[in-house]
């Protein structure tokens, strides 16, 4: 019998009935726990797949224990549902190039710059907070955030975060946004930072903040310059906190940029929209985005990037919430104009550190009302319990509505599962013994009485020891689990209720929905491969059309995140007539340095390992400084020509028989 309300099916209950839960009750975290090879990933994939299928959900997956089969499964799901599929992966530890796992997957690793959006303060916190730190290093952290935010803010004002590229075929110049981390690395050279600070002027600042009056803009420019100068002076003292903070930050950024853990230039926005991961776009379009972050091979990088992804998602949620407050959405509570997003985190404990735990908790706290649906899995709760002061696990569990446990090996985790299930009053049988004797104390003894006396005892719904005795068999593919749900009410019985004596919890046999068959090989049938690749190209073209559509929600959301306050001239006079008197601040124009222009860069950006602070870059921007604000670089608009996923150049390239052309 078909179900009218969309439900997530998990398996079969005690008497063989389907175990399910309505999707509109699965908005908060679903935590899946189980030792290795018990079926956690299969179950998480099943939950994500069903919600994507029924609700049009996109998926954002962080897999800290990646494998090709997982990638192929997600690509298959995307293909079946007609969604875009993007895959960010780290370089293989033993060397070698990128290998596709499914014909629907893009032919090259996708690009992702977690620091591409937002203001300097937000990005600085994202970067610095993605690194684990203790309370003793808090002062360094504050300094690092300040100098990082200042560097990015100055770059945004002067346009240092853009670069000019010239098309080798047509000779036409276009402007492209540079890698955020590269910009930061260069500006952590205090001399360059001071130079850029000197290049600022009120007109440039007003371009970003049109509501500022001239006096305010001048004042702000003076403040920023002053701060840049004082930081430079501070950093000259080797023993200063600022100097250490800058050195640490430079080390973090450099290790990220130059790390061979990432494919060259993958930590950048890239110039192909179809290969660029944008979380906001993924939410609005229901894309399936997979981050394969191998914590076993690159623990630190995986943890850092994982934290940044979650922080980027938090920032995106803030933007979405702001849009939602303006949009009129009717229907159910917490309804959103965009489809929900499944955030699936695999092997959560593998890359766990305080930074990622904080990021996760922040996400779990803030996301249910904007359609973010977390599904997390971990082998052991001990991995999370061991983070920091041990409170993270309790906070994660407090924000979890559904706790599913497959077979576990640790008694400590067993107790945690029992605790989560809540306490009930159970009648426990107590045996009674009849003692007999006589006045001569002969033949005395004790025997079991035939009376059973029940004793009321507070006990957990799921007794300790239950999850350790669950069955997990590879032979007949039987995976037993117990599931405690808080919505609509706390319960562990799902098909033969109501709960009561000898019916406090139910052992469920896990059944994944829509899994690929065993031994699935997506490259087996050449015709299917060609058809799938064509479908991927079609999805890529659809992306281009969506991005070019000025009436689409995606466009509006991007506009919202770039919204500037009104120009000073548009503000009603009764708000401006009481303007503060202009202070007599003498502004020194920057020295007019006559330097030759650098050679034009190639169409492809330089590889990460060749990056270094290039003094000439300053000169190109010094030259650009001489232009009026209206001629400063603006972000390139997406093209929608016959091949919408060619590189963002005005002249279309002739099509060639190659996968890359579709991307």
């Amino acid at each position, binding site marked *: 019998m078909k179900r009218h309300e969309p439900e997530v099916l998990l398996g079969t209950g005690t008497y063989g009935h389907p175990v399910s839960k309505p999707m509109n009750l699965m908005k908060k975290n679903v935590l899946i726990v189980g030792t290795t090879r018990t079926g956690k990933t299969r179950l998480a994939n099943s939950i994500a797949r069903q919600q994507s299928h029924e609700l049009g959900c996109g998926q954002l997956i962080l897999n800290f224990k990646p494998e090709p089969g997982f990638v192929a499964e997600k690509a298959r799901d995307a293909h079946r549902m007609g969604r875009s599929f993007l895959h960010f992966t780290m370089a293989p530890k033993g060397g070698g190039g990128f290998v596709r796992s499914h014909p629907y997957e893009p032919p090259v690793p996708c690009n992702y710059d977690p620091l591409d959006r937002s203001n300097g303060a937000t990005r600085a916190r994202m970067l610095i907070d993605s690194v684990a730190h203790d309370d003793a290093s808090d002062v360094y952290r504050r300094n690092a955030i300040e100098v990082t935010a200042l560097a990015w803010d100055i770059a945004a004002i002067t346009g240092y975060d853009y670069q000019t590229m010239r098309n080798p075929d047509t000779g036409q110049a276009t402007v492209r946004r540079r890698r955020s981390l590269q910009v930061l690395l260069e500006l952590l050279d205090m001399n360059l930072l001071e130079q850029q600070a000197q290049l600022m002027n009120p007109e440039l600042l007003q371009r970003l903040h049109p509501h500022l009056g001239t006096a305010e803009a001048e004042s702000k420019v003076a403040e920023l310059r002053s701060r840049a100068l004082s930081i430079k002076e501070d950093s000259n003292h080797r023993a200063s906190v600022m100097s250490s903070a800058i050195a640490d930050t430079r080390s973090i950024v450099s290790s990220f940029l130059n790390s061979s853990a990432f494919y060259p230039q993958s930590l950048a926005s890239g110039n192909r929209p179809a290969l660029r991961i944008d979380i906001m776009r993924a939410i609005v379009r229901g894309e399936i985005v997979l981050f394969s972050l191998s914590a076993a091979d690159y623990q630190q990088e995986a943890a850092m990037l994982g934290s940044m992804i979650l922080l980027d998602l938090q920032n995106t949620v803030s933007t979405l919430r702001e849009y939602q407050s303006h949009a009129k959405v009717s229907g159910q509570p917490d309804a959103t104009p965009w489809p929900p997003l499944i955030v699936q985190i695999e092997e959560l404990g593998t890359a766990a550190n305080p930074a990622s735990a904080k990021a996760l908790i922040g996400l779990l706290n803030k996301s249910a009302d904007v359609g973010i649906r977390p599904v997390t899995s971990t082998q052991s709760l001990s991995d999370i319990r061991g983070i920091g002061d041990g409170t993270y696990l309790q906070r994660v569990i407090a924000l979890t509505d559904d706790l599913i446990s497959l077979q576990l090996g640790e008694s400590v985790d067993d107790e945690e599962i029992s605790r989560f299930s809540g306490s009930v009053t159970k009648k426990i049988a107590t045996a009674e013994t009849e003692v007999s004797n006589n006045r001569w104390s002969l*033949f005395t003894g004790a025997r079991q009485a035939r*009376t059973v006396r029940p004793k009321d005892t507070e006990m957990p719904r799921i007794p300790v020891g239950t999850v350790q005795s669950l069955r997990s068999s590879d032979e007949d593919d039987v995976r037993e689990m117990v599931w405690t749900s808080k919505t609509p009410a706390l319960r562990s019985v799902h098909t033969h209720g109501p709960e009561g*004596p000898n019916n406090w919890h139910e052992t469920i046999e896990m059944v994944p929905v829509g899994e690929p068959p065993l031994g699935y090989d997506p490259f087996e049938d050449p*015709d299917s491969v060609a058809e799938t690749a064509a479908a991927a190209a079609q999805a890529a073209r659809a992306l281009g059309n969506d991005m070019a559509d000025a009436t689409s929600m995606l466009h509006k959301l991007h506009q919202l995140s770039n919204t500037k306050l009104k120009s000073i001239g548009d503000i009603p006079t009764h708000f401006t007539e009481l303007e503060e008197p202009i202070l007599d601040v003498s502004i020194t124009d920057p020295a007019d340095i006559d330097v030759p222009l650098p050679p034009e860069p190639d169409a492809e950006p330089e590889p990460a390992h060749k990056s270094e602070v290039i003094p000439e870059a300053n000169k190109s921007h010094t030259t650009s400084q001489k232009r009026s604000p209206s001629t400063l670089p603006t972000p390139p608009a997406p093209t929608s020509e016959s091949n919408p996923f060619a590189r963002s150049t005005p002249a279309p390239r002739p099509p060639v028989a190659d996968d890359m052309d579709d991307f």
Partner: protein
Amino acid sequence: MGLFGSTDNTEHERKPADRSPTNTLQRATVIAAAALVVTCLFPGYTAVLIAAIGAYEVRRVRRWWFGVWAAVTSVIGWALAGASLTQWMAWPLSQIGHTFAWILAPAPEANPIVMSINEIAESSLLSLVWMQLWGCAPAALLTTVIFASWRSHSRNIRGQIEGPEHTNRRPVGILDRRRRDRERHRIAAGHYLTPPPEPAAAAATHDGNPHA
């Protein structure tokens, strides 16, 4: 209890009924004798009763099922008896008729039931068994309903105590396992999902999409 008297040191509210061994033995003898007589005279009734009570006690079959089966077996029995109520009513007495046929010598004014019994007396053993079962099954099942009603209260009280030896919950049976296997296949195949629209379904056929 001790050889020279005993003192019960426990403080119960409920104690086992105070019975002397002699009374217990007498009661057991009477019950056994009655059961033997009933079994000899109505073997079908005894067999069905034992099976039904076993089903109730071991498999926790709910008592309303026995009422349903009593009605069903009544209808079937009556139909098998040629839609003859007289014939059907004679079937429970088949064993009696077979055993004591010499008592029931036919007389011109013998009633239809006696005549039926005489006919039965000349039937084969297999026929006897058949008639016993279909004749006695409804009564045995109705007796089980009464028995289950009498037992249900104590079972419910006992079932509130935690533990497999006390539970009153129905154990998992063959039909449950068959349902489980059936549902596993349906769930895995996406039977409960909304079928995708045509273009996606067509594109996914190469992946073995069951909705195609």
